[in-house]
């Protein structure tokens, strides 16, 4: 536990440059500055490590970095996505608070691999404390001569800036983030072209999640194989899980991939008041909900969660006990997506409002028997038809809640009240 991003978390001033360097921080970056690494060596190490994108999509980081046209003419950018907004997720916030230098070094290493001399860390608008921490770390790094132009008289240059968002969930989508960073309204771009070719200001750009970047320095200093061995096949290394909901000790836990869910639940202090587990959303609000039975048999890695019928996502585990009204829970989630839809494309703009309104009507005791089929049909029509993944994110919870807990919805429609809440 706590071997990568959180390895210094128990130390005093764990966010300081001193603490970071005392535990071997910036050793890879200093080697790069001395010319002791080639980009390909780093990419190979990452490929060996099995590190996959920690923002939710799980795309192999080494492969992503290798796609970047590093020899293309002109400016290239490396961007860290710290616009952590998925309900249930709070891991990047703590990385920024407690280990900001790992993000800086990870981005610096990335900038060298991708030949990008400018980086931006786009931080969620509400994250004032993490933003200030990161800014402080940036100052330290500049003061220590670790960033800037021709760093330590080398040919390597890297300028890093942080940027505070303005409070839109959708900007966590990487192309919406680019738009926002360019000063425009945060709305996703259509793909292709992908950011690796046409990114920030139309230039080749690599965007990774905070946790992905923060994992890179430790992978480089201890080796890709070391990292891979921490986890299981297809899911190398450790992962931060944000456990929230009806547990005694909701928190972020950095554990090895492949840990049984039951163990993670124990780490989080077990069920609150000894209540019985009812449902688990394993990867953040947009991933399908699982029943207790299925969840208890699942391991916490990409394949394990997929086998159980959901996704690892950003590792945001929402625990619900028997007192949870699933109609109410889904209505709340539907409201979130309705509220956060950017409005650009039709299925999401119109469909999220439709889903929410039908659920709200059911909650108001005005549900109709055909509403369940209607909800199923509407989510199906959003799914896969939108510009970005927010459409799917809004649809998936509806599908899984209705599939797994249909009787609660039927009860609510028939009786005009919750089956669970008294």
């Amino acid at each position: 536990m706590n071997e990568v991003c959180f390895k210094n978390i128990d130390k005093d001033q764990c966010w300081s440059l001193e603490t970071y360097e005392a535990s071997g921080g910036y050793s890879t970056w200093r080697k790069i500055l001395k010319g002791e690494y080639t980009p390909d060596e780093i990419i190979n190490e990452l490929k060996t490590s099995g590190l996959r994108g920690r923002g939710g999509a799980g795309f192999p980081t080494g492969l992503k970095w290798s796609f970047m046209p590093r020899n293309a003419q002109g400016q290239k950018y490396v961007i860290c996505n710290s616009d952590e907004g998925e309900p249930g997720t709070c891991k990047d916030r703590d990385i920024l608070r407690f280990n900001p230098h790992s993000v800086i070094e990870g981005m610096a290493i990335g900038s060298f691999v991708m030949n990008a001399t400018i980086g931006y860390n786009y931080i969620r608008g509400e994250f004032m404390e993490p933003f200030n921490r990161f800014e402080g770390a940036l100052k330290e790094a500049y003061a220590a001569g670790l960033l800037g132009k021709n760093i330590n008289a080398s040919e390597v240059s890297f300028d890093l800036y942080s940027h505070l968002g303005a409070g839109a969930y959708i900007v966590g989508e990487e192309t919406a983030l680019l738009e926002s960073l360019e000063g425009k309204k945060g709305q996703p771009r259509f793909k292709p072209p992908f950011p690796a070719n046409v990114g920030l200001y139309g230039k080749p750009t690599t965007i990774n999640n905070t946790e992905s970047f923060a994992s890179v320095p430790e992978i480089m200093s201890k080796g890709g194989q070391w990292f891979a061995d921490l986890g299981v096949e297809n899911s190398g290394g450790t992962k931060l899980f944000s456990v929230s909901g009806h547990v005694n000790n909701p928190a972020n836990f950095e554990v090895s991939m492949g840990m049984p869910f039951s163990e993670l639940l124990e780490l989080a202090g077990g069920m609150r008041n000894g209540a019985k587990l009812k449902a688990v959303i394993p990867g953040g609000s947009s991933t399908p909900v699982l029943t207790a039975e299925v969840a208890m048999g699942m391991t916490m890695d990409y394949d394990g969660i997929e086998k159980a019928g959901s996704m690892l996502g950003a590792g945001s585990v929402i625990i619900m006990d028997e007192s949870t009204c699933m109609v109410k829970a889904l209505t709340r989630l539907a409201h979130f997506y309705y509220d956060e839809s950017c409005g650009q494309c039709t299925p999401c703009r119109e469909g999220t409002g439709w889903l929410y309104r039908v659920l709200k009507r059911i909650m108001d005791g005005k549900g109709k028997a055909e509403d369940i089929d209607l909800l199923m049909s509407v989510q199906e029509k959003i799914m896969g038809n939108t510009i970005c993944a927010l459409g799917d994110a809004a649809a998936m919870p509806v599908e899984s809640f209705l599939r797994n807990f249909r009787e609660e919805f039927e009860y609510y429609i028939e009786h005009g009240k919750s089956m669970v809440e008294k």
Partner: protein
Amino acid sequence: MASITIEIDGNIVNAKAGERLITITDREGISVPRFCYHKKLSVSTSCRMCLVDIEGVTKPQTACSTPVSDGMKIHTQNEKAKASQKAVMEFLLINHPLDCPICDQGGECELQDVAVEYGSDVSRFSEGKRVVAPSDIGPLIQTDMTRCIHCTRCVRFGSEIAGIMEMGGTGRGEDLKIEPFLAEGITSELSGNMIDVCPVGALTSKPFRYELRSWQMASADSVARHDLVGSNLYAQTYKGLVKRVVSGDNELVNETWISDRDRFSYEGLAHENRLLLPQIKVEGQWKEVEWNVALDFAIKGLNKNALNSRKAHKLGGLASSTATTEEFYLMQKMLREIGCENIDYRLNVNNLDDPIHLDSNIKLSDLECVDNVLVIGANLRLEQPMINLRLRKAQLAGASVSALNVKAFDYNHKTNHSTVSPNEIATILAGALKVILEKNSLEAPSYITNINPSELSINLADKLLDSERSVIVLGEHVINNTQAASIAQMVAEIAKQVNGKTLNLTSSANTLGAQYAHFLPKSKGMNTNEMLAADMSAFLLLDIYPEYDFHHSNSAVEALSKDDVFVVSLNSFNNELVAQYSDVLLPMAAMYETSGSHVNINHDMQSFAAAVKAPEEAKPAWKILKVIADLLELPGFHYENVTQVSEELKHQKIYEHKQDITIDLGKKSSAIETIWMHSAYHSDALLRHAKSLSSSKIGQTNSASMNTATAKELSLECGNTYLGVPVVVSDTVADRCVFVSSNQSTDMGRES
């Protein structure tokens, strides 16, 4: 791009690698529904209506954005594609009012059309529908934003084509509203195109609101005649009236856009001020009469005053530049037949002794390919909106644009503005010419040997020398420059030296038609100014409104009002001054009411047929002129239709009354320089009678701009008037200059 083959719905189709799928399906006639896609705008993919199934790709893909690659197999109609298309259709309709019968777009609505194929009979949406408060965005566009489907075509039109992002999307999710950012609404000179691109009834024509259904109207191909572009458009008519004008497609002329001026001028046709009946003046009193009486009266008067007494040289013929080419041709043919050489269309030029000569030798479609532009004396956006649109494209593609103007006008593209007094232009050009000649190792002519090129001249010369495809644009503000002819000559010389092109915008409407029709005085003839100063005995005037059209309007009216001058006026609108000096008033057809042609700046003679009949007794001017010629018993006027006239004149070469010019850079005035321009929506009679245009922001323009020092010198401040026009103090105006843009007549103005 490499040639490839792809498969669409089982058929092999040839394409180029990387082409967007929708351009291929459109070319092949395969129907793919769409709302946000527009061939002239950037791809948005936001409506999602064009989703198709591509083999090997899990999710459906938008045809508008997908680049094709070799061997790609696409299904536009299979179950997966249809399911996505129908899903999007349902989403589009849930919040859209389903009250097509009371929507102004009904019958020509893209949403309605597509819904027939992809929509469902019954709505499954039983929640409350979204309602959006309407906003008043000006007199031209009616909004009904509850109907908006957020395709953003209007937004993209504004930012990409009109060059002014007045519409935008505010709010997010369901609250996303398409609305103007500023309270003053939409002010673009091209705003009406938003009506054309809007697929639904959210943006419709305000003047046309609730008038008619599209299927009730006939549609006639026509050509706009307010500028040198001759935009192609459709005049939509009902029961003999033009009810609406929409844009036509012509890549070589106007692509698919038209200016608001061309779109809304038709409103003037129905103005209560139309001249409807022939009238004669008997003992100082106007009397409405039959056509034959009026024409007899006219012939008798002309015979008595000019022809019978062999005084054809005392007859003058003047016409407005908005006339058709055939009208110019018939009028000059008739006048020349009776021995009259006093023929002119140049009414607003102070100095016709040294007229401007400059070819326009670049095609409209080539304007967007130039790499360097020098604009001299033009407020391009308002005066030549369609030309500015092309030049803006060139600028966005990297061309450098420089402007020498009396004022730093609001161009909607990046321009290096130099505000200079009209007095300085010739010297600046002479300096530039000198630099260019020196670079080309050529001897400089004597008039520039003493010129010491300024930094500005050197800069302009360098840009011209560095470019491969330059164009120099000479604008209307130059026409009354004391050195106008010299400026034009130097522009031609500079362009020649740098292998560049020239664009002569010093006159407008159908000026080139007049030149092809030889509507100019030849050897012994008098020009406008000479006629007005001479002892004339008769005039034949075609659609002239003196207080707007003549440079010297007061003296023109005086000359025409003399007791012994017999004046025959053909007009489409009533006018007090015309009534004062005329002896016969013959009501003539206006634009859209007459057949003929317009010669545009590409030198293309674009023909059009009358879309409607002229009201009451008004007749097409070419017919009136033909009958007058017949009554004068002149040979060669046996025309049965206007096409025969067009056939006869189309082989004529352009005629310009060229004469050698001695360039004299010393000829400068020391007075404060005033450039007087009519506001863009007051440049001809039809426009001045188009009510919605007049009430728009551009139509309301009425200002005399001057800088602080000039205002002080003239003892003026904001709130005062200058030549009757409200003063605006702005330091964007060159020193000791006044730029007037006015919707008033000029009788108070230019005479000072």
